[in-house]
């Protein structure tokens, strides 16, 4: 196996020296940040546009209600009829005209009010207008019932039920979602890595086929060694890419902080103040700090070392299984356009794992679907990672489930790699024919 390191090294260098790889490594974080900034900027632009609304109030109600706010400016029209108002609103380019006809009761007035505009109005603007009517109507009803608005404010109350496990451990609402979110991030990372770098493995195999070097190589090394070297080398390039991202994100953070040196000073000062304040305020609001403490405790209790370890196990096994399938597909075809029919069945379980994982693990991490998918080897790397932040053992994932899923995964890994290597071995020497599934099955017996 002394040639394996040579192959890994070549595959690794071929990948990281590739121009598109270098560009993607340095460009994609910039693109990502740029995208976020752009979206934020565009959203703020969208929001900052102040809406102008004309109000033609013919009633005796709502005389003082439509006052200009941050996002809507109201202009009152007097002594105009409806048609005149509409015309002038359109000429002046206002967002619309609110027409409040006269009637003898508030309800009747509200019911007959109309909003005219050139295009369908935005839901935010309608919300603003509707809430004005709603507030007035509620106020009037309360007044009719003889309830003062102060009393009404006191009536409002909020209630959350306390939960605990049988052993008396406090449960906190939402912590399952937080945990599943953390696990989901791990699972998502695994899926993205498999799809991106599995694709790289496949393209690299296709490249060796189309450049016709494959037969030269496999007269020196075993096809299996080449496949394995390719899979490992590509994975190492991927890890390098991730490492560059993490390091550069860290550096960027430090740089940004040093630029905002002053702010950092205030930040620490603020933190000190907060600490002091918290110290003083703690006795006065015990319930709030207790909840916060519970959350932090619970998040800190997530076994990150254990998570990292299992992430590594599930990541490696999942990647090896999928990338060897990708390698086999690459070997079976002559060009990338022929890969579609074979790729779909691979993406399917990955997608299923992510979506089923998100829905079932969030709602019930111990439900039969969540358990089933975290045992099934093609989905377990993702779904089990979503469940694991709960811990292993009592209150978390039963140990037997973890062990079973890893055992199944290893078994599948051996089986799939064996099958993939067989298809690979035959496929790399086949040219000119787009194979069907039937052909692949035949190749297994060569």
């Amino acid at each position, binding site marked *: 196996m002394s040639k394996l390191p040579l192959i890994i090294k070549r595959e690794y260098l071929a990948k990281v020296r590739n121009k598109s790889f270098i560009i993607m490594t340095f460009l994609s974080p910039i693109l990502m940040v740029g995208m976020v900034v752009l979206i934020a900027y565009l959203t703020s632009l969208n929001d900052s546009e102040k809406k102008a609304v004309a109000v033609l109030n013919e009633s005796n109600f709502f005389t003082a209600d439509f006052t200009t706010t941050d996002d809507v400016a109201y202009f009152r029209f007097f002594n105009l009829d409806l048609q005149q108002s509409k015309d002038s609103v359109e000429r002046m380019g206002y967002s619309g005209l609110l027409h409040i006809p006269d009637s003898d009761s508030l309800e009747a007035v509200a019911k007959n009010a109309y909003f005219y505009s050139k295009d369908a109005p935005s839901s935010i603007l309608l919300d603003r207008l509707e809430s004005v009517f709603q507030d007035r109507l509620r106020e009037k009803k309360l007044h009719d019932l003889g309830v003062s608005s102060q009393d009404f404010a006191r009536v409002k109350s909020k209630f959350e039920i306390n939960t605990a496990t049988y052993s008396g451990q406090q449960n906190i609402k939402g912590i399952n979602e937080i945990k599943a979110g953390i696990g989901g991030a791990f699972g998502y990372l695994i899926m993205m890595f498999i799809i991106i770098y599995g694709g790289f493995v496949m393209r690299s195999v296709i490249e060796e086929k189309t*450049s016709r070097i494959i037969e030269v190589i496999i007269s020196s090394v075993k096809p299996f060694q080449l496949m394995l070297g390719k899979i490992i080398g590509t994975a190492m390039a991927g890890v390098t890419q991730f490492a560059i991202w993490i390091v550069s994100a860290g550096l960027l953070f430090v740089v940004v902080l040093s630029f905002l040196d002053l702010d950092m000073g205030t930040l620490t000062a603020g933190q000190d103040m907060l600490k002091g304040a918290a110290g003083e305020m703690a006795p006065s609001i015990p319930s709030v700090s207790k909840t916060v403490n519970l959350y932090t405790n619970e998040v800190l209790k997530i076994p990150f070392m254990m998570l990292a370890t299992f992430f590594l196990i599930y990541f490696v096994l999942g990647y090896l299984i999928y990338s060897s399938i990708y390698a086999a597909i690459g070997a079976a075809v002559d060009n990338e356009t022929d890969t579609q029919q074979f790729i779909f069945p691979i993406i399917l379980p990955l997608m299923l794992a992510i979506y089923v994982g998100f829905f079932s693990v969030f709602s019930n991490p111990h439900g039969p679907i969540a358990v089933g998918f975290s045992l099934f080897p093609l989905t377990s790397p993702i779904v089990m990672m979503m469940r694991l932040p709960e811990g292993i053992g009592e209150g978390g994932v039963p140990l037997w489930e973890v062990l079973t899923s890893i055992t199944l995964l290893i078994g599948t890994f051996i089986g799939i790699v064996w099958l993939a290597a067989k298809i690979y071995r035959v496929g790399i020497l086949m040219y000119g024919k787009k194979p069907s599934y039937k052909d692949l099955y035949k190749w297994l017996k060569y």
Partner: protein
Amino acid sequence: MNSILVTNEVTKHFGSYTALNKVSLEIPKNSIYGLLGPNGAGKTTLIRIINQITFPDSGSVIFDGEPLAPHHIATIGYLPEERGLYKSMKVGEQAVYLARLKGLSKLEAKKRLKFWFDRLDIGDWWNKKIQELSKGMAQKIQFIVTVLHEPKLLIFDEPFSGFDPINANLIKDEILRLRDQGTSIIFSTHRMESVEELCEYIALIHESEKILDGKLTDIKKEYKNNRFAIGLSTPHGETLQQQLYSKFDVSDFDFNPNESQMNFTVQLPSDDSKGLLHYLTTLGNINHFEEKIPSANEIFIRTIQNKSIHE
């Protein structure tokens, strides 16, 4: 041990298709052995078995006296018919990589590459990418990479495809030089004309079976059938023609009265060329007398025809 490679009844199936059927060959050391046959006959499958890319269903292969084993890879050089190099990799780096896969050290590989690059006068290609080279240039690199680890057995599958005539000659000379230095060479092709000048031994493969093998000169001797091409200088062409036709089995008769030149072919029942020549001297001046030795191509076609008649 005079054979570098012996195959005993090697058989290979792909599903229901038989690619090789009990093929037994003996490839002598220090010679060029032609593996001939039309496309799809099974030559490439046999070569892949020798290179341990695929494995026979039954039969055995003996390499240099030992059963073929993985470590023999380092002593075999193979230039496949479907060949190429990594397009975006630099020439030197790629050659070193391929040499190291054959078991050379990095240092040794570089040293030998320098020798070969100087020899073929391509030293300034070292840092170029393959995609910047022409097809013929890339083929030169491919050839160097094949022979660099100084293998005992070299296998060339259609080596001259992709070369222009000048480079093809260059490579042919290199192949002959390697043979003179003691390398055994298998030369696989469906183009018979290149066989005549290079191969000492041949084997014909047809429809997955070996139908003929041996020393090329022996085979030719066996297949020659006392045909002679004759050129005579005489003004009496017409009269002689009848005389000749009555005495011998004559064909391809051609008489040019302006130049008094007569050409024809005679088929003798036995190898009594002496008697024929003696008779011809009485007719005029002989300016051409040659026994017609069948070409490899003719032998090949005849063998296949005979075979299908017997079936």
